[in-house]
C-alpha cells in the first residue's frame, strides 16, 4: 500500500517537474521555431507549431543586414576578457580571505556583496560621463572592466566558499611532508581548487554574456555585443517576429550550447557548499 502511494507520488512529481520545466523552456522553444517561419506564419492566428514550411531565409537576412560575427566576437571578448580579469583578482582575494582571515574578513565580504544591492542605473550617468571624459565610450576595454567589476563580488564569494572547503590540516600535512610554498600550490592547492575555479569561470562567462544593462547603455557600434544585436531587431522597423527570433536564436545559441555541455560542472559548482 505504502509502495503504491510512493509510486503515485513519483508519477505526480515527475509530471509536475516536466510540466514546469517545459513551461520555462517554452519561450525559448517558441523563439527557435519562429525563427524558421516566414513573417506571415510567425504572426498566424491560430499559431502553427511544426507543420509549416521551414525556411532559413530569416537567418540569411539577419546575416546580410547586420554583421553577426562582429557582435559574436564582441560578446566573446567581453565575456572571456572580464572573466579572465575577474579571476585574476578574485583568486588571490578569496584565497587570502579563506586562508588568512582577519577580524574584518566577514565585514569585507558583506560589504562587497552590498555593492550588488545598489541599482545599476543609479550610477549610469557618473559612469557614462567618466567614460566620455576618458574617450572610452563604446570601447571593449571599458566594458570588460565594468563587467568584471559588477561580477567580482559574486565570483569572490563563490571562490571563497570553495577555498573554505579545503581543510587547513591538508595544507599543514603538505608542509610536514616537506612541500615548499611552490609545491604546496602546485601539487596540493591547485588540483583541489580547480573544480571550484572552473565552475566559477563558467558561471561568470554566462553572467557576462547575458549582461544587458551596461552593454546596451555604454555601446553603440564598435563594442556592441549580441545583446545589442538582439535589441536592434526589436522595434524600430515594425514587428518582424521571425527575424527577431532568428537574431535571438543566434545570440543565445553559443551560451546555450556551452551551458549544455558544462551543466554537470555548473550544477556541482552551484551546489558545492550546500551539499555535504
Amino acid at each position, binding site marked *: 500500500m505504502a509502495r503504491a502511494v510512493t509510486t503515485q507520488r513519483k508519477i505526480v512529481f515527475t509530471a509536475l517537474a516536466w510540466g514546469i520545466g517545459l513551461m520555462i523552456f517554452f519561450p525559448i522553444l517558441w523563439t527557435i521555431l519562429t525563427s524558421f517561419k516566414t513573417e506571415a506564419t510567425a504572426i498566424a492566428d491560430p499559431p502553427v507549431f511544426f507543420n509549416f514550411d521551414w525556411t532559413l531565409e530569416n537567418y540569411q537576412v539577419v546575416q546580410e543586414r547586420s554583421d553577426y560575427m562582429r557582435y559574436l566576437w564582441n560578446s566573446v571578448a567581453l565575456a572571456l576578457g572580464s572573466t579572465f580579469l575577474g579571476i585574476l583578482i578574485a583568486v588571490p582575494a578569496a584565497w587570502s580571505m579563506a586562508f588568512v582571515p582577519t577580524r574584518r574578513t566577514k565585514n569585507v565580504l558583506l560589504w562587497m556583496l552590498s555593492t550588488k544591492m545598489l541599482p545599476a542605473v543609479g550610477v549610469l550617468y557618473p559612469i557614462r560621463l567618466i567614460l566620455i571624459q576618458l574617450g572610452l565610450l563604446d570601447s571593449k576595454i571599458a566594458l570588460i572592466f565594468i563587467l568584471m567589476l559588477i561580477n567580482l563580488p559574486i565570483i569572490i564569494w563563490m571562490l571563497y566558499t570553495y577555498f573554505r572547503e579545503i581543510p587547513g590540516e591538508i595544507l*599543514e600535512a603538505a608542509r610536514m*611532508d616537506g612541500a615548499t610554498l611552490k609545491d604546496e600550490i602546485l601539487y596540493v592547492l591547485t588540483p*583541489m581548487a580547480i573544480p571550484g575555479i572552473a565552475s566559477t569561470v563558467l558561471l561568470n562567462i554566462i553572467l557576462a554574456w547575458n549582461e544587458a544593462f551596461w552593454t546596451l547603455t555604454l555601446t553603440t557600434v564598435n563594442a556592441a555585443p549580441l545583446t545589442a544585436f538582439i535589441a536592434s531587431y526589436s522595434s524600430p522597423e515594425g514587428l518582424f517576429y521571425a527575424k527577431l527570433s532568428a537574431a535571438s536564436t543566434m545570440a543565445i545559441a553559443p551560451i546555450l550550447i556551452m551551458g549544455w555541455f558544462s551543466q554537470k560542472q555548473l550544477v556541482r559548482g552551484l551546489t558545492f557548499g550546500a551539499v555535504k
Partner: protein
Amino acid sequence: MGRITLDKVRKAFGDVEVIPPLDLRIEDGEFVVFVGPSGCGKSTLLRLIAGLEDVTSGEIRIDGTDATHLSPAKRGLAMVFQSYALYPHMTVRKNIAFPLKMAGMDQAEIDRRVDGAAKVLNLSSYIDRRPGQLSGGQRQRVAIGRAIVREPSAFLFDEPLSNLDAALRVGMRLEISELHKRLATTMIYVTHDQVEAMTMADKIVVLRAGHIEQVGSPLELYRTPRNTFVAGFIGSPKMNLIEGAEAEKHGAHTIGVRPEHFQISTEGGTWTGTIGVSEHLGSDTFFHVTVPGFAEPLTIRAGGEVDLHYGDTIHLTPDASQIHRFDAKGLRLP
C-alpha cells in the same frame, strides 16, 4: 634517533598564554602520550614540536640541535592528523609517495618504500584507490603509511583515533602500539582518552591549562598521582575523592580511594551506604553507592558475580594501604 627536549617553551596567542614556560624531555624510542581534558594545550604543544606553530619563547631541541625556528619539514618529524588530512585528488600510492617525492628521492626507491609500507599496513589491495573510496580505518592507515615511509626521527599523532568507531579504535590502538614496538621510533601521541594513554604509553604527560601536572609511566601515575587532578583523571572509573571528617581521620584534606580498592560486605565495614545505579559489564560490576555524609556517591568495582541490587545496603572497607592522601591544595601527602 629522536630525542626531543623542550626548554622553557612558552606559547601565547596575543595576550592569552596557552602554554606557560614548560620543560620536557622525551627520550629516543619512547612512546609519550600527552593527555588532558580538551583545551588543556596538548594539541598546541604537539604543533609547537611539529613546527606548525611558532613558539613565543624558549627552545626546542631535536637530537641536540636547536630546531626552534626550523620549518616543519626540516625537523625530520612526521605527523598523523585527526582528520587524516589525505590529499583527496591523489591515489593511496601517490599520497604515501608524496613526502618522498618532495624529498627528491628517485622513483625506484620511492616505489620500494611505498610498497613496503603498503604491505606492513595491509594497504596493498587498495593502493590505486582515492581516499574518498576508503573507510575511516583505511584512511587512517594511509595517513600512517605516509608518515612511516619518511623514516622520521619521531612520529606525532594528533588524536588519530577520535574519528573512528569504538571497535575500530581498539584495533588501531593495538596496531599503533605494534608499529612502535617494531620501529622503535619516538612517538608522541595526543589524546583526551585516558584509556588510550594508559594502554599505549611508556610515559604519560598529564596536562591542564598548559601546565604539566605530572610526567610518569602509566603505573606510576596510577599508583602515586601527584595531585587530585591526576588522581581523578587517570584510571577508569575515576578515583573516589572524599573530603571532610573521614579525610581528617587520615590527617588529610582529601583522601582518594580507587573503585577497585574496597572490600564489600553485607555484614559490616567502615562505611555503610545504599546502592544506586549498578553497571554490569559481565567481568565487573560498578556500583554507585550513596554514603550518608559524603558529598558524592562512591563508585565501587566488584566482581561480575556479585548479587546486589538497587536499594540494597552495602558495607565498604577501603584497603588501608591504597588510600591516597592530599592536602588542602590538592597535592599528594607522603
